[in-house]
């Protein structure tokens, strides 16, 4: 006797529902559609938007938040949050640049030192959350201040300039057709691809999703949840360090005042990209789309001569729409 699939039968039989089930969910497609819509709008309204060079610029401009958003996405997937990201990035960039300039360390030593400092802070976050069992919001609120203070004290609130050429490597460009593309943008895209691979094609990635979706179930199924959580925050810290390197390459200096709005900006990118703040659901590539949406609006509105206060307004509306779409799509499903 075959057990019939009972309660779900009526809804799934409707033909449009069967098609809808095969398409990616609205939370995945939505951000991409929004980005395409915005792009189309600006392409029509201003003749300077649709240019390879302009797109290359936008990619460079979203690099800082875009890379930080990778780490933030990983953290948010575990139902956590990381408010310290921008400050940890700034710390890494100051360590990196001061080691190169003040201590005269070769770049291939200074850069890992900077990324190492950021990674250490990531581990600190993870340790406080798992060993002392403090909520991520509180922990990263504290480490954000600690990282900021250390950065100011170590740099004496001065920007570090006169960097050796190697630190600017990722700011160099190469030609793609008629467009100049920076290596930093390529690195960002590679990082996104790598993270996508780990999240979707490996067991560890599935475990991260399970941890955010139902931590108790993950634990019962033998997944080392505490170790995994520490690992996620540590990897996020390393990613913030890489963001610091890319920022140094883009601006040409180590800036201790950098990254102060990056926590909210990266969370915005993650939310716009369709990842749920409750954990366990979302797309890493969505965060790139989310960062691009903000970047496209900022670029397009400036090209159109619209005051930037409207950019802030639109970003706010989009965030509400993104979160509402996520809730509504789950209520239906």
């Amino acid at each position, binding site marked *: *006797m*075959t*057990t*019939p*699939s*009972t*309660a*779900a039968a009526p809804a*799934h039989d409707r033909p449009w529902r069967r098609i809808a*089930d095969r398409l990616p969910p609205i939370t995945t497609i939505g951000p991409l559609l929004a980005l395409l819509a915005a792009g189309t709008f600006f392409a029509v309204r201003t003749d300077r938007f649709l240019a390879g060079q302009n797109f290359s610029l936008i990619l460079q401009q979203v690099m800082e938040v875009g890379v930080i958003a990778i780490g933030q996405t990983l953290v948010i997937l575990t139902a956590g949050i990381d408010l310290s990201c921008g400050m940890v990035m700034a710390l890494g960039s100051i360590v990196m640049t001061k080691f190169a300039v003040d201590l005269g360390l070769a770049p291939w030593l200074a850069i890992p030192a900077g990324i190492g400092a950021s990674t250490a802070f990531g581990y600190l976050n993870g340790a406080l959350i798992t060993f002392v069992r403090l909520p991520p919001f509180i922990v990263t609120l504290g480490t954000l201040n600690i990282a900021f203070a250390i950065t100011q004290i170590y740099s004496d609130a001065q920007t570090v300039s006169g960097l050796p050429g190697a630190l600017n490597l990722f700011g160099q460009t190469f030609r793609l057709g008629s467009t100049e593309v920076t290596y930093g943008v390529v690195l960002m895209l590679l990082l996104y691809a790598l993270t996508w*691979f780990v999240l979707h*094609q*490996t*067991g*560890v990635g*599935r*475990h991260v*999703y*399970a941890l955010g*979706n*139902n931590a*108790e*179930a*993950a634990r*019962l*199924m*033998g*997944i080392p949840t505490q170790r995994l959580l520490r690992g996620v925050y540590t990897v996020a810290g390393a990613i913030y360090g890489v963001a610091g390197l890319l920022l140094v390459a883009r601006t040409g200096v180590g800036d201790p005042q950098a990254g102060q709005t990056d926590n909210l900006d990266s969370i915005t990118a993650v939310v716009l990209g369709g990842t749920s703040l409750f954990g*366990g*659901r979302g797309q890493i590539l969505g965060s790139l789309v989310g960062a691009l949406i903000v970047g496209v609006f900022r670029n397009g509105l400036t090209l159109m001569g619209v005051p930037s206060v409207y950019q802030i307004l639109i970003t706010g509306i989009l965030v509400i729409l993104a979160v509402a779409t996520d809730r509504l799509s789950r209520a239906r*499903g």
Partner: protein
Amino acid sequence: MASASPAPTPVLEARGLVKRYGHVTALDGADFQLLPGEILAVIGDNGAGKSTLIKALSGALVPDEGEIRLDGQPIRFHSPLDARRAGIETVYQDLAVAPAMTIAENLFLGRELRRPGLVGRLLGMLDRRRMLEQAKGHMEGLKIGIRSMRQAVETLSGGQRQGVAVARSAAFARHVVIMDEPTAALGVKEGNMVLELIRRVRDRGLPVILISHNMPHVFEVADRIHVARLGKRCAVLDPKRISMSDTVAVMTGAKRPEELPPEALA
């Protein structure tokens, strides 16, 4: 019990289990036997030591005294993982599934299959096709009719979700499946569906320990009934030879096992 053939080795056995929490003695020399190919229901009033017994058998806690044997060999569990590695799977009361993930993903949660060769070993790349196929196989083997293994578990009904959890434990269990209140949250139709699933698991050769408060369900599927009382095994009853009300009476202490006719004991 009178029997012509020699008594089979119990699949899972415990003798003299003791567990104390401060002044409270949860297990007071409890015994336990699970025979091959049976569905053994474990019942007991609150505080009878039923859940503590099950936790000891599934590795969720370590008893202070006593011994546990699996297939006749003594064994010690220090964690639920130890029990799983020994081939004992548990279907938890809240199912322990990740609602946003698919049926296939949940089935292999924590035990994902990797691609063969370098790609699987070095990169840890998942073999999703194989997991989908095997998931389909496991579900069909238990005759659970869900069309797509790609469906998110949260889109399923309560009974279907229970089916996924049962299929997961049946897929990986080598010796025992423990089910904790599997029909508690379900309606009549789906509850019966799950009972049928339990029978199918037993029919595939996996003995089942069924913890349940639902007497009608117990009487429908159980081969024997283990009654826990006051931290010990009070009696083991034959549901075909004893009434439901007498069983409840033994469970609450209103009737003593000595007062029962001998054929009621299993």
